[in-house]
C-alpha cells in the first residue's frame, strides 16, 4: 500500500478523436431528423389545433412547442454546465484531496457556459414573449379586461426601472449578470489551473480556494434567483419558497451524473489510471445521496402544498396531476429520479462498479430532463404539450452539442492537474 510506487503519466491529454466526434455528430443528426419530423407533425396540426383557444386568450401555434423545448434544454444544460464548475469549486473550498485527478473533468463542463449564455439570451429575446405570460402589456393595464392585479404586483421584479409591460430590463440584466459572472469565474478557474500546470507550487491551490469561495457565495444567490427567473416565473401567479433549491437539486443530480459518466467514459478509454473504484465509489455516493436530496425537496414542496390545500398554491400540482398529458410523467419523474436510483445504488458494490453507475447516471440524466419538462411545459403549452419526436429530437441535439463542446474543451487542456498538491493523497484514497 504505502510502499507501492506510482508511475502515472501526469501529462496525459484527452484525445478527442474523429471516432468519438463522428458518433456524437451521428446522434446530433438523428436528433435533428427527429426534430424536423416533430416540427412537421406539429405544423400539420398534431391533433390539437381545434383546441387552440386558451384561457390566456391567444391561439396555440406550433412554434410555441418548439420554443418551450428550447427553453427546457437551455435551463437543463446550463444547469449541468454550472454544476460542473460548482462541484469543482466545492472541491477546492472543502480542501478535498480524493477528487484531485478528476477536478479537470468537472471543470470541463463549464465550457458550455458561454454557448449557453448566448443561446439563452438570444432565445429569450426571440421566444420570451410566448414563453412568459408576464410579458404581456395588457396584464398591467388597469383599464384592460386582461388586467391582473397579482401579476401587476410582481411586475417590478421583471420590468424595473422601466414601465411595467414594456421591456423586462431587470430580468435581462439579471440573466446577463449571472452568465457574465459564471463565465468570468469559469475562465478564472481555467487560468489558475493552466498557471498551476506550468509553474507548479501550492500558491495556485490557495488562489483557487479563495476564488472558489467567492464563486460559491455568488452561486448561492444566483442559482436560486435564476431558478425563479427562468423556471418559476413561467407559472407567474404561483410561487414556492423552496423552488430555487428544488431546481438547484435537480441541476446538481444531473451534473453529478454527467461528471460520473464522463469519468467512467474516460477511464474506459484508458485515461485517469489513478482513479480507482474508491473514487468511483465516492462519486456514486454523491449521486445516490443527492438523488435522495432532490426527492426530499420535491416531496417537501408537494406535501406542504397538498396538506395546506390553498388554491393559489395547489394550482401548480392540479395543472400537472389532473392532466392526461403530464399526470403520468409525475410518477415517471419519481420513479426515475428516486425509486430506481435508490434501490439500484443502495449496495456498496453497485456504487463501486461502473456498470450500475452508468445505468443509473443515464437514467438520472433523462429523469431530470423529465423534471424540467414538467416544470416548463405545463405553464407554457398547457394540454398542447407532451413528449414526442420534437422533445426527443431537441434533447439529442442539445445533448450531443453539449458533449461536443465539453469534450472539445477537455481535449484542449491537461486531463490531470499534474501539480495539484493533493494528487499524491488521492492516489491513496481508500474507503
Amino acid at each position: 500500500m504505502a510502499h507501492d510506487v506510482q508511475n502515472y503519466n501526469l501529462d496525459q491529454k484527452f484525445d478527442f478523436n474523429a471516432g468519438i466526434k463522428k458518433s456524437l455528430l451521428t446522434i446530433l443528426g438523428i436528433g435533428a431528423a427527429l426534430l424536423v419530423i416533430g416540427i412537421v407533425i406539429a405544423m400539420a396540426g398534431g391533433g390539437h389545433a381545434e383546441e387552440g383557444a386558451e384561457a390566456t386568450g391567444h391561439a396555440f401555434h406550433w412554434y410555441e412547442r418548439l420554443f418551450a423545448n428550447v427553453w427546457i434544454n437551455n435551463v437543463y444544460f446550463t444547469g449541468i454546465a454550472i454544476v460542473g464548475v460548482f462541484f469543482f469549486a466545492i472541491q477546492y473550498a472543502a480542501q478535498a484531496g480524493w477528487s484531485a485527478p478528476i477536478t479537470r473533468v468537472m471543470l470541463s463542463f463549464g465550457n458550455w457556459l458561454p454557448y449557453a449564455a448566448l443561446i439563452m439570451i438570444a432565445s429569450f429575446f426571440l421566444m420570451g414573449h410566448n414563453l412568459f405570460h408576464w410579458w404581456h402589456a395588457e396584464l398591467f393595464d388597469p383599464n384592460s379586461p386582461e388586467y391582473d392585479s397579482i401579476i401587476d404586483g410582481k411586475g417590478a421584479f421583471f420590468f424595473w426601472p422601466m414601465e411595467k409591460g414594456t421591456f423586462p430590463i431587470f430580468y435581462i440584466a439579471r440573466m446577463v449578470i449571472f452568465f457574465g459572472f459564471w463565465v468570468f469565474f469559469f475562465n478564472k478557474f481555467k487560468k489558475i489551473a493552466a498557471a498551476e500546470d506550468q509553474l507548479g507550487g501550492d500558491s495556485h491551490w490557495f488562489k483557487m480556494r479563495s476564488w472558489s469561495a467567492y464563486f460559491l457565495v455568488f452561486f448561492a444567490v444566483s442559482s436560486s434567483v435564476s431558478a425563479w427567473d427562468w423556471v418559476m416565473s413561467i407559472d407567474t401567479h404561483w410561487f414556492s419558497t423552496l423552488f430555487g433549491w428544488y431546481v438547484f437539486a435537480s441541476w446538481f443530480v444531473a451534473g453529478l451524473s454527467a461528471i460520473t459518466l464522463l469519468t467512467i467514459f474516460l477511464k474506459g478509454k484508458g485515461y485517469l489510471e489513478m482513479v480507482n473504484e474508491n473514487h468511483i465509489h465516492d462519486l456514486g455516493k454523491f449521486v445516490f445521496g443527492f438523488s435522495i436530496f432532490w426527492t426530499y425537496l420535491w416531496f417537501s414542496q408537494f406535501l406542504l402544498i397538498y396538506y395546506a390545500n390553498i388554491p393559489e398554491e395547489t394550482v401548480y400540482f392540479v395543472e400537472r396531476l389532473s392532466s392526461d398529458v403530464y399526470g403520468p410523467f409525475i410518477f415517471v419523474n419519481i420513479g426515475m429520479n428516486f425509486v430506481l436510483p435508490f434501490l439500484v445504488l443502495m449496495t456498496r458494490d453497485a456504487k463501486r462498479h461502473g456498470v450500475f453507475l452508468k445505468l443509473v447516471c443515464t437514467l438520472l440524466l433523462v429523469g431530470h430532463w423529465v423534471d424540467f419538462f414538467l416544470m416548463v411545459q405545463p405553464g407554457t403549452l398547457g394540454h398542447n404539450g407532451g413528449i414526442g419526436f420534437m422533445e426527443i429530437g431537441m434533447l439529442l441535439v442539445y445533448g450531443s452539442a453539449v458533449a461536443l463542446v465539453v469534450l472539445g474543451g477537455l481535449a484542449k487542456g491537461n486531463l490531470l492537474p499534474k501539480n495539484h498538491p493533493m494528487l499524491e493523497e488521492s492516489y491513496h484514497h481508500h474507503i
Partner: protein
Amino acid sequence: MERDTHFILGVYEDEDVLLHAVKEVRSTGVKIHEVYSPYPVHGLEHVLGYKRSRLPIAAFLFGMLGTSLALTMQFYMMKFDWPMIIGGKDFAAFPDFIPVSFEMTVLLAAFGMVGVFMVSSNLKPWAQPRIFDVRITDDKHVMAIDIANNSSMEVEKIKEILKSSGATEVNNKSFE
C-alpha cells in the same frame, strides 16, 4: 467458554510492522484468532482477510419492517379503525403517511442494526470481557493466536514465526 483456552500473544510496537506481520503469519498457515490495537489500523481488516460485514443487510430488512409497520398502522387507523377527515383529505391520504413511514424506517433500521451488532459481537451487559493484555488500550498491538485452532503446529514453531515477523514480545495467555 467453560474449557480452558490458551493463546499465544505477539506484541507489536508499530502498525506498519503489524500489517506486514499479519500477512507473513497468515502465509505460513497459522490461523489468527484476533488482532487488538489501541486505535483503528487502516487496512488491518483487509490483511486479516475479514469478509465484509453483513450488517447493512440487517439494516435494510429492519428498515423495510419499519416502513411496512408504519404504513400498516396508519392505513389501519386512518381508514378502518377510526376514520377522521383531516384537512378535507381522503381517509387513506398516502402522502400524509410518508413522513411517519420515513421516521419509522430510520428508527427501526437503527435499532435493528444496533441490536444485531450487539448480538453478533457478544456485547451483552453480563458478558465477561477477555482482556489479552492491558497495553492494547495504551500503545501496543497484540496478535492473539488460539492454540486449539492451530493444533497441527507446534507451539514453539508458532512462537518462532511471531518473533521473526517482528513481535517484540511473545507471551502466553490462558483464560478460565
